[in-house]
């Protein structure tokens, strides 16, 4: 999923302080799962913002709406009925959702309430870790199902580097060495010999380095 975290309240308040009526839009997808921008977080932020306004002797009217998916124009359309009653929109979706709203309502200021973090997995209750960088050319088949692009701090394709210590990365004992994990997994698979195949220099064109990306599925295009 795409993970996110709420921005500092001060920054959010800075964005919305000029307004009296906002729509606070949550999203039912990834940010609900990572407890950053679902219905519940919308309610919480709404209360907090209203209280912050009240403290300054102001009032803020918040229209709380949580969409099925903010990154889908079909669902963003649901805001049409409410948008005229709002001075601004505060989105609790990932960056994709914020941009969909901005696109649909060109005249309306739209602000992000979250910092979109990474594509990750849930490690345990309340803990998420980065797993994929979306490089566009998956090499997990070569690396025992553990991604060095996302999980090695130096993105090293032929690791581990000289900083690997007790299975941890040189940057922090809290970060696993991806290449240690890869090696352990290759051993478990009985594929130790695979380790010595050099992974060639990566073609970064399918990744973000090739410019903004797009997928067009001819069979689905209307």
């Amino acid at each position, binding site marked *: 999923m795409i993970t996110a975290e709420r921005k*500092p*309240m001060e920054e959010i308040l800075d964005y919305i302080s000029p307004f009296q009526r906002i729509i606070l839009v949550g999203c039912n997808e990834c940010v609900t799962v990572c407890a950053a921008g679902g219905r*519940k977080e919308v309610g919480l932020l709404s*209360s907090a913002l209203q209280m912050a306004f009240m*403290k300054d*002797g102001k009032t803020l009217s918040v229209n709380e709406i949580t969409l099925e998916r903010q990154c889908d124009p079909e669902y963003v359309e649901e805001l049409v009925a409410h948008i005229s009653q709002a001075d601004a929109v505060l989105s609790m979706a990932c960056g994709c959702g914020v941009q969909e709203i901005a696109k649909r309502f060109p005249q309306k200021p739209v602000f992000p309430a979250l910092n979109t973090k990474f594509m990750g997995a849930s490690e345990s209750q309340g803990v998420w870790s980065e797993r994929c960088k979306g490089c566009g050319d998956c090499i997990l088949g070569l690396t025992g199902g553990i991604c060095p692009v996302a999980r090695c701090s130096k993105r090293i394709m032929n690791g581990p580097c000289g900083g690997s210590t007790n299975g941890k990365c040189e940057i922090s004992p809290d970060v696993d060495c991806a290449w240690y994990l890869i090696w352990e997994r290759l051993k478990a698979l009985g594929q130790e010999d695979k380790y010595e195949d050099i992974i060639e220099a990566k073609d970064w064109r399918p990744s973000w380095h090739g410019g903004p990306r797009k997928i067009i599925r001819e069979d689905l295009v209307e």
Partner: protein
Amino acid sequence: MGNFEPIIVAFCCHYCAYTAADMAGSMRLSYPANVKIVRVPCTGKVDVQHILQAFQNGADGVYVAGCLEGDCHFKNGNTKAARRVIYAKKLLNEIGLEEERVEMLLMSAGMGERFAQTAFEITEKIRKLGPNPIKKAKKS
């Protein structure tokens, strides 16, 4: 300010603090009328949203009173509540309210005296802090 009577909302677990409050009553122990008790089946049921809404609706202080460590009827509702209270403190801080306005307390069903005593202590603490700044702004 001298005659400020704070409104305190206490989320009390049915199995401990609520019973303790009851016991305080039957022991004829008085405790401040400022404390408004909300009975919950377990403090694990108390969400940050509930705490925030109490403040939004005019509470000057909030506390969550759950079972002693290891005694939760639902295993660990009390420790979850404790973490949520910490989160609520952070949130209050972020919007400029004193984090001391919310606390987590632990007690058993038999601690009628402790219930009454903490009700006094917390009422006094909040009295010193003064009214919830939101209310102040509202009035002025």
